[in-house]
């Protein structure tokens, strides 16, 4: 484990240094990424330009949800978002190289790229969080602080698990990679809004089966002291870390299963 982290730091450090060599293009890239990530939030603001509340949620409450989803997703994207390009590794045979090296397969894939420009997205999420907190009067208690702090890594682990399961699709079909987008990019969009606006089947499928409701909706309910209007039991607010653990185990098993059954095309 410690060895794994050291390897990861070495490989990612080299990536960052090489990207910083081209300063102008790096700056342009950061700016582009920063603004494109703001579009989603302009959508939220536009909605609240027309209505005072979305369901029972005010603009600052939705901004709070948005920021939690955006920050944790951006961190996940920064760490493992390049799994999007994983199908390419299968197609051109480069995954075979990974198999013969004496390190974990997933670790090597994850450390193979690091898009530093995505830091801009984390920054955007933090700006929205500051905006949200400036308008909310949260009555902070140790329990609320604990739930919020625990929800951040939990959310990142849930997003990562979705990404890893999505990448596994590539073991069976290399051009179906976009399926994953529905759950990763679609997932963060869904988690940016209160779940009570979605229809029942969408909540069941994307909220519980793909556990997106645990990314920030339930923890946010607790921190904001809001009841779930659909009558979900109160203890769901505390389940995010457990759900994240289960999701990670499932994703890990699927990855190992897929790697065991992988047959190279001989690239």
């Amino acid at each position: 484990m410690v060895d794994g982290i050291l390897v990861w730091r070495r490989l990612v450090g080299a990536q960052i240094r090489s990207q910083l060599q081209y300063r102008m293009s790096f700056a342009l890239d950061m700016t582009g990424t920063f603004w494109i990530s703001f579009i989603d939030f302009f959508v939220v603001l536009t909605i609240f330009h027309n209505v005072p509340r979305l369901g029972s949620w005010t603009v600052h409450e939705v901004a709070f949800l948005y920021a939690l989803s955006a920050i944790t997703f951006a961190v996940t994207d920064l760490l493992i978002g390049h799994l999007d390009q994983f199908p390419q590794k299968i197609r051109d045979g480069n995954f075979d190289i990974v198999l013969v090296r004496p390190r974990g397969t997933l670790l090597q894939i994850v450390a193979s790229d690091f898009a530093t420009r995505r830091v801009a997205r984390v920054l955007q999420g933090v700006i929205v969080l500051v905006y949200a907190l400036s308008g909310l009067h949260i009555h902070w208690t140790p329990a609320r602080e604990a739930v919020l702090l625990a929800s951040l890594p939990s959310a990142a682990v849930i997003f990562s698990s979705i990404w890893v399961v999505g990448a596994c699709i590539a073991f069976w079909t290399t051009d179906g990679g976009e399926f994953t987008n529905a759950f990763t990019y679609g997932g963060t969009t869904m988690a940016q809004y209160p779940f009570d606006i979605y229809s029942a089947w969408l909540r069941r499928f994307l909220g519980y089966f793909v556990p997106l409701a645990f990314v920030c909706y339930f923890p946010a309910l607790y921190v904001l002291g809001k009841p779930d209007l659909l009558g979900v039991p109160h203890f769901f607010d505390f389940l995010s870390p457990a759900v994240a653990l289960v999701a990670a185990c499932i994703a890990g098993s699927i990855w190992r299963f897929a790697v065991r059954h992988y047959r190279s095309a001989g690239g």
Partner: protein
Amino acid sequence: MRLDWEIAKRGWRRYAAYPWATVAGAFTNTVFGFLQAYILLAVYRHRANVGGFDQADAVTYVWLAQSMIMTVYIFSWWELAWRIRDGSIATDLARPLDPQRYWLAFDLGRAPYHFLFRGLPPFVIGALVFQLHWPSPLDALAFVVSLTLAVVVSFGFRFLYNSAAFWLLDFRGIVTLSTTVVIFFSGMAIPIRYFPHALRELCYALPFAAVIQTPVDVWLGKRSGLDLAGVLALQVVWALALLGLGKLALGRATRKLVIQGG
């Protein structure tokens, strides 16, 4: 003309070669359609009309926009930029065929494929689940014309920002920024009609509305008679203007072009 047709057929075939990519993409558009539809429906719990859109208009907008997203190819298009960067553009220029005309024909072959296989399936699913607004025969016809013009406007802009690669060694930032501008100002992220008055007027005055919002307005019957003729004419103007600028950029660039390896 014969040549354009042959190129267009290749544009179709290029994308038809990856059926699973099409299925996966259509699935993703469908999921986004559901999310956006429920988000906008929540807005209508408080109001019956936003910027001239009622509930059925808003949901129809969602599914039309998801269906048009690939037809007008709103996300980043890099092909020309890559050919400039790796030097293949030199070969293109040596051919007795204008590269802009080549890529336009190719794009007009690609668009119907994406319309049928990426656009229709999500729309049909949306129509089965939600109450949509259906156009009159005249509006439906005008929509087809408007959508075709939208593809040309979108292509004109994509060609233009790709040609920035003649001057910039690294064009990723420009492409990302251009894509951001189109997504926001075209009405892809949220209907232009939801914006505050001044921003709304600005959006309608820019060419990007012609890519998404104009065809949607036409389908929804928000434009009729002279007004309809006017917005279609404006789309033609934007298409010609952007193609003209692209041609100008290409002409300028080729006069000073030095191929750096490749």
